[in-house]
């Protein structure tokens, strides 16, 4: 399954790119994170503290337990600081 994975703010900076397509068999966001962390150090570093990271699936905020079934886009980013 191909999923677009997007990163924002310091997650983007640590991983070093804003967006990539990932071919994954992960069932949940948490599984996807495990896969990514296994890839390279920069991913492992970026995802070291998951309490500092929020996730959106198809542009809806959700949790790391969320299913990836039928999902097109997963986004990782720090807590938001708008306003």
């Amino acid at each position, binding site marked *: 399954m191909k999923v677009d994975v997007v990163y*924002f703010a310091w997650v983007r900076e640590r991983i070093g790119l804003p967006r990539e397509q990932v071919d994954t068999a992960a069932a949940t966001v948490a599984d996807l994170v495990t896969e990514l962390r296994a890839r390279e150090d920069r991913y492992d570093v970026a995802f070291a503290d998951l309490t500092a990271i929020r996730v*959106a699936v198809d*542009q809806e*905020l959700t949790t790391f337990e969320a299913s990836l079934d039928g999902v097109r886009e997963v986004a990782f980013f*720090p*807590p*938001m*600081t*708008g*306003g």
Partner: protein
Amino acid sequence: MRIVVQAEPFDYGAECARFAEQDGGVGAIVSFAGVVRSTPEAPVTLMEIEHYPGMTEAALSRIAEEAVQRWQLVDVLVIHRHGALRPGETIMMVATAAAHRAAAFEAADFLMDYLKSRAPFWKKEHGPEGETWVAAKETDEAALDRW
């Protein structure tokens, strides 16, 4: 209801004036503007605002819709900039129009609380000692429990 996400500056006074032109049912208008701060203790030369195109507009619309429902707003406006801003520039504004004062105030306060923690914007401050991502405050998340 108008939701705008843009890189360009906007004219706060003109937006206030336009928003204030409401029909006869409106008795109270509240507006809030957030401005890039820079003080001698915490000098900022530039603020960069990143956002998540697509999700940003959807999140702001959802928050605004909820405010309209809960406080029976006659109108609501949200404008939020992204990109590079200098100190003194207006980052964003919200405005609410209601029959009465309490609704207009509460709804504006609600919009700001939710916008801060649920709309995908991230601020980075540049100063003489480098650049830092603005950290969310625990109180920001806690503020949502008020509503």
